[in-house]
């Protein structure tokens, strides 16, 4: 079961995970990561833009690689675009597998790629206006772990 989406409106991860889990009967474990707009001092809003012809297709290709690399039963990958406020979910990745290692590693793998190797651009609004955000050095180091 594969469910890859780009959303332009707020979403509630809990409403996705129940049906996703039920759609993968026989599983041994489900790992889920939900990223939210962090409450950072002075940050009023976050905006994610994308490039429509590439972004969703890139997420599908990322899912292909996850299925090729791990023993997966199902993968849910949902990413917001548009303007968001602290506390709002940005991204939700959920992986169902027979064994926990595959479920956890898949989420780790997909998040590292969504963070610094998917077609999104992020900026945050502070009192003095909008500022573009690049991945941190840690994010690139995390990505490099997968030896691709």
């Amino acid at each position: 079961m594969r469910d890859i989406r780009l959303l332009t409106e707020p979403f509630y991860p809990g409403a996705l995970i129940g049906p996703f889990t039920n759609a993968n009967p026989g599983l041994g474990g489900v790992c889920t990561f939900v990223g939210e707009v962090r409450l950072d001092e002075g940050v009023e809003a976050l905006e994610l833009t994308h490039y429509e012809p590439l972004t969703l297709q890139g997420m599908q290709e990322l899912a292909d690689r996850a299925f090729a690399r791990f023993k997966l039963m199902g993968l849910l990958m949902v990413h917001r675009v548009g303007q968001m406020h602290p506390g709002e979910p940005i991204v939700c990745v959920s992986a169902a597998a027979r064994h926990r290692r595959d479920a956890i590693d898949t989420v780790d793998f997909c998040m590292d790629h969504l963070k610094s190797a998917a077609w999104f651009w992020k900026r945050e609004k502070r009192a003095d206006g909008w500022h573009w955000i690049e991945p941190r050095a840690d994010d690139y180091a995390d990505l490099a772990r997968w030896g691709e």
Partner: protein
Amino acid sequence: MAVTILFLGPLRDLAGEAERQVSAPLDWAGLLDAVGPDVAGQLSGERVNVACAGKVLADKTALNAQDGEEVALLPPVSGG
């Protein structure tokens, strides 16, 4: 008809606009010419990718955009 150049992410601020129409065909030299020195400077760096007609170019200097095609300038990404 023409080629549409799209400025994504921070390149939009640098270009001062979201897109620009230029006459077709458009090659790498023509692109550097068309986008102005600031964006051209970024574009020459390794970290900026170029997509043409919905495909990221393996070698952006081989750009050859035809009438009606969209050329997207893709700076370093940041998601999640």
